[in-house]
């Protein structure tokens, strides 16, 4: 089975759509609460000066998260 694409794999400038959330517990809940759910579209904007975390835009607002934590969001690049 090929590895699924996650948010961690997208580089700044690319857009995508959330397919699934693979995290539960605290992290999963935080992702959910900030608006990650299947079907939502987003755009990766930029990395921090030291590369981590990064900033993305969805539904008209901006969110920053760490690459590691983004690895739990399965996405489809658009």
């Amino acid at each position, binding site marked *: 089975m090929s590895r699924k694409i996650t948010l961690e794999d997208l580089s700044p400038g690319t857009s995508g759509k959330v397919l699934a959330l693979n995290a539960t517990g*605290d992290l999963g809940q935080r992702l959910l609460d*900030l608006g990650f759910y299947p079907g939502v579209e987003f755009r990766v904007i930029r990395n921090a000066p030291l590369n981590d975390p990064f900033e993305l835009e969805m539904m008209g*607002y*901006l969110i920053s998260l760490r690459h590691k934590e983004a690895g739990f969001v399965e996405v489809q690049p658009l």
Partner: protein
Amino acid sequence: MSTRVYAALAGQPNSGKSTIFNMLTGARQFVANYPGVTVEKKVGYFSQDSAKVELVDLPGTYSLTSYSMEERVARDFVLNDDPTVVLNVVDASNLRRNLYLTMQLLEMDIPVVLDLNMIDVAKKKGYEIDKEVLEEELGVKTVTSDGKRGVGREELRHILAHAGDGQIGLPSFRMDYGPLEPAIGRLQNLLELEPELKSRCPTRWLAIKLLEDDERAVSLAKEHALQWSELENSLVGERQAFEADFTIRPAQHIAFRRHETAERVAKAALKAKYPGRRSLTDRIDGVLCHRVAGPIIMCAVFYSLFELAVSQGGRLAAMVTPYLSQAQFFLEGFLPAPGYMHEPLITSLASWFMTSVSALLVYIPQFFILFALIAILEDVGYLPRMAFMLDRIFKRFGLHGNSTLPFILGGIYVGGCAVPGVMACRAVPDERARLATILTVPLMNCLAKTAFYIMLVGAFFPNNQAGAMFFISTITLIMALPIARVLSLTVLKTHETAPFIMEMPTYHLPTVRAVLTRAFERIWVYIKKVLTIVAAVAVVIWALLQFPGVDQAKTDHFQQQAQAALAKFEKAIAKTPLAKRINSEDDLMALFAFRADYRAAKAAAAGDRAASKAVNTRFKAMDPVFFEAVKNRRSKSYKAFNKLRKTRARIWRERQGERINNSILGKMGMVLEPISQFAGFDWRVNVAMISSFAARESATATFKVLYGIGNDGKYAGPAMGDSAGGKPITPLNATALMLFMALFPPCLATIIIVRVATQSYRWMLFAFAYPSILGMLAACLVYTGGGALGLSGWEAMWTYYGLALAFAVFMGWLPLKRYSSNPKGA
């Protein structure tokens, strides 16, 4: 007859809750904490149409789970405090996401009013929101507001004032969870049979929370259910059955449904679509978070923060100082005056007390500027950007991007203050990282420590001043970072952490109102908590330094010296006009008082020639004989009086030293000597260190005397006051002492702020104890270890630096724990 209304403001962060809160309540508000937790509770009042409304600003949350302290606080408040109405403040320019929280509030069976705030921003973005559609869909009263400009104030006040009249019913909205509904229904039926649970929360809400596997809901049910095992069985059964049928856990399904519903409602209510062009905030971030420009701008921001608060504020403090000492001088005038040798206890206590309090009062102008500047950064939305840029470094040491500001304020290089630093820790959302930050910020270089270092560096490293200052200024951060990591791996291990998922809020122009309100709030905390407690502790420390006092033999000895000096003085002035004037101790003290007044008047004239001359003329006219004795350097009476004055001052100083040595604190210094000798500290150094705890500023002056450093800032070789008992003080001593000071327990004000910030005496004691022990170890390592290897102070310094740096790199390099896909299960 007036009715009482108890209303709460709920909403997502940055929706403008605090702005609405200020708009509604005006100045009648105060800040406290929710019992037992560090979450801030703001309460305000207003009266309208014969109703008295008490308004509580709940913490801003994206959701109402039990994962974070803020969410638990907000949720418990709604469930347990029985508010008359909850005003849900919604960012109208971000409707879809904000409605996600609204959905959850509507499930809690309380009257809700929806406030579409930031309606101006929404309009500017091109949204048009149909209020009727929202009211229809959600079944709640809906209003619009622009908190920044006060639009909507009257309507909101009116609605809240009449919330108790029964016009606002329970929301009719009911979320449809689709395929999960049958399970919810079955659980709800079971819960209906539990009277205790039923009385505590709505059964449908609890059924949903139990299916979500919400930790607190489960423990609530466990505690109060009559038939818990039965309930648990069917709960687990329902969860598994659902997951088997729909290949999704109920918790995710529930959240997804809420999002879908929020999206549907938002779509229905929005008449214009999201334009999809690059927002202004995004474009600003392009500069402020730019790879190169971002860090440069951030440094510029820090620099201006310091320039304005420390330098300019310092100037302001310097302006305030003379007034404070004048006030103190004036107040001391009411106390019994000291005699030639007699010092009234009450006078000594009151002076000590006033000196301690005014040492802290001096900081108020500086703190006010600092707090206002931070409030501006907060209001603008810059703080999360700082966190964004530095998170990567801090994370490696168990800290958080938001630890940046506290460290900067604490004095990451030189010249900060731990009090505002610790206060700024509230912005760290992750509890473990917040505690680690609170515990390490006091290790930074505050202003008082900086002055201390400058003194020691100047005296013992005269040829390497810049290098030694660089050492002490940077070693603190090099030590603090790995210490933070060690703390978070050990004592803080069990505390909650939170993922770094953070909204980067829209940039706003700050409002004067919000900035001043926040600055006053913080200053008030400082005054209320720190000043009052410091005042109380100052009295205790005074007593510990005062009693049991000087023994009889010594007292007699001092008395004899004093009498001898007095006899000499009388003999010297015998042939001058002054002799006729000095007939009693009162006369003598009048001369002392005359001199003090004269000096004060001269100081007030401060360099102004004409004014200075006028003072001379005035005092000469007042009493020509006394004037001669205080002014004419060549006169006999001046010389005699000058000698007497100096001798008296010396005797008083020695008596005071003797008293301190005999005191309870002095005894403590001796008890510690067997350990501290390995750090090169004798008991007198210990006493000086312990007593500097009340106000760190005094340490510099004390050690100057103790270490025999002259007024020219140079070390003059083993002196009378020398602490090593005749042994010369070496640069190695100085290095050990500086390191000890760097790690030394935070000052009293900081300790109290740590208590305020952690709401715990245990952490307060810990914040006191661990740096003391570490500081002692570091000083012993340098003094005893360095001595054994025959290192000079300078060599020991850099050897230590190398070791600390290696340790820091090692701790930073230690792998971080990777998130498992199920952190709770791990």
